[in-house]
């Protein structure tokens, strides 16, 4: 029932490789692809948010996804992270982990991190405590009742705080941070989680010029170690970081390629400028 259709892009391997258990192991990326989204459709009350969408993200790639409002960008993120179940189609993490069968927290454990559009941090916890929660340690109730941080974990948090420029505010309550700092804290929490794949939804919304530049640098430096998918409206920002851009329109891929190719594509121009 798996992997019989859709032979065109990278092969996901023979069916015997495909293990879709609820306890996810490591994503198998022997074919160089970390995320397979194949023929995915989602509809809400008759509205087709995603319409036979195909998307492949390579291991270590930095990909930008753009598209007008309602193109299905957020729905795509929701499908990958388990918040929304597709009506049809397949979503695989590596060639072995079927994301449509895992709950949100299992998908996070499998190695997919997500940054929300609106910065989502724990407002009444300190910056340090926010990072402590994100740390990839025991996630079960009995692990956390007696958990105490050791020296190396503290160092690790401090190093991450240094990267995101919040080391000096480690004891401040996160709710009192500026908007940009919250965005950074959330990115820091994602980094310390050490995901294989990072989904980043509008990371520079509401950021100052300087903050935007630093964010661009940070995201670009992540590629290679992590695979990063960025959804963004800010075209300057996309131009700065993107090597490959995917344009969504009406729930499907309209164009894919370098920023230049995409910008000169008449269909893209029509969608963005024609209306």
């Amino acid at each position, binding site marked *: 029932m798996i992997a019989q259709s859709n032979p065109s892009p990278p092969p996901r391997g023979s069916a015997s490789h495909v293990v879709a258990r609820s306890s996810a192991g490591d994503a198998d990326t022997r074919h160089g692809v970390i995320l397979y989204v194949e023929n995915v459709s989602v509809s809400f009350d008759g509205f087709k948010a995603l319409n036979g969408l195909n998307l492949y993200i390579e291991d270590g790639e930095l990909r930008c996804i753009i598209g007008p409002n309602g193109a299905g960008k957020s729905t795509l993120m929701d499908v990958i992270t388990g918040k929304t179940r597709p009506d049809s189609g397949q979503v695989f993490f590596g060639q072995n982990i079927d994301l449509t069968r895992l709950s949100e927290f299992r998908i996070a454990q499998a190695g997919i991190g997500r940054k929300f559009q609106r910065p989502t941090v724990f407002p009444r*916890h300190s910056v340090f405590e926010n990072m402590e*929660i994100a740390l990839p340690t025991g996630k*079960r109730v009995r692990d956390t009742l007696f958990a105490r941080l050791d020296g190396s974990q503290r160092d690790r948090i401090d190093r991450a705080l240094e990267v995101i420029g919040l080391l000096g505010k480690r004891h401040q309550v996160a709710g009192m941070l500026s908007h940009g700092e919250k965005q950074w804290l959330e990115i820091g929490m994602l980094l310390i989680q050490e995901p294989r794949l990072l989904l980043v939804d509008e990371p520079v919304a509401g950021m100052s010029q300087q903050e935007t530049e630093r964010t661009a640098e940070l995201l670009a430096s992540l590629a290679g170690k992590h695979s990063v998918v960025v959804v963004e409206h800010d075209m300057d920002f996309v131009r700065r970081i993107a090597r490959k851009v995917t344009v969504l329109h009406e729930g499907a891929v309209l164009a894919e390629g370098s920023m230049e190719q995409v910008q000169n594509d008449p269909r893209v121009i029509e969608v963005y400028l024609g209306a």
Partner: protein
Amino acid sequence: MHGRLESIASLHTRRGWLAFLAITLTVMVGLPLLNLLPPAGGRLHLPDFLIPLLGKFFCYGIVALAMDLIWGYVGVLSLGHGVFFALGGYAMGMHLMRSIGTEGVYRSKLPDFMVFLDWKELPWYWQGFDHFWFAALMALLVPTGLAYVFGFFAFRSRIRGVYFSIITQALTFAMMLLFFRNNTGFGGNNGLTDFKRLLGFSLHAHSTKVSLYLVSGAALALSYLACRFVVSSKLGRLLAAIRDAESRIMFSGYNPLDYKLFAWTLSALLCGLAGALYVPQVGIINPGEMQPSNSIEMAIWVAVGGRGTLVGPLLGALLVNGAKSVFTVVYPEAWLFLLGGLFIGVTLFLPRGLLGLFDSAGQVWRRARKRPGPAHNPRSDDEPAATLTPMTPDGAAE
């Protein structure tokens, strides 16, 4: 072992521990001595009736802690905690009924209400309650089990907020109707009462009352420390994080269901314990304890004291119940109006409860003292400056 001790010691600051010890000693040694040593009627004498009353308040205190754990820290407002309290109480009441022996009105081996219903033998679910250990175990297990099953389905279906509160109200109401039925086998309307003794000690003896008071006080102190341990752990920080941003918790790889369920069942366990200690001190348990209004009252204690502080809800439980004891004697018709007014007033004007009020006042006071006053009169700076000092929102930044 050393690590454990250290982590327990770090629950409080040195001053916090001193306060805890001082209060525990006063309650566990000071007050009983004031009751037992000075001659009755003397000025220093603590009247006998206060002992079971305070013991009862301690049980309410345990309930307040339980409510704060799930409402203050996890943000889940239960308006049905009375049912867990009552089930703990019923389990203990069943043992007390069995301990009456043949001294009931009908001189039967069966509890009086069963004779009245013309039952010939003990129903199966009354078996085992002759033993104290079994009843004590059931007082904890039955509320916990019910909470686990109820919580599992409610949290798994992601029922939150006011919807959750409403079904907990429905739960306690439904259980009340069930227990009102005579055929359910728990004494119907009248409940279980006319108890004689517990573990061979007469419940009417003053020494037994003092003992029950001491056991309740100890249970309260231990419950407080246990709750403090939970909320100070990483688990506690996760509970509060679920309250503030559940989706982020999920995308950090935690299953919120497990965490909510843990706090919820622990909360029910504490209520069961409180109910079991309550019944021998008041001498009766009936379905009235499952009235929706009782559970709402429990939420009011927590709101009045200050959510998410443990100490606040304890204080709230003592103050509200103290006021209730006075008012229901002096002016009984006004009590419910006062209670309702209190709830509305606290919600509108004191979102952080009495403890939050003290906290803000303390901050204003400290800041006023820190501020360098006019050079010629350094002592006068407390008074007018205090009212002008702005308060930080939530008093959080430091």
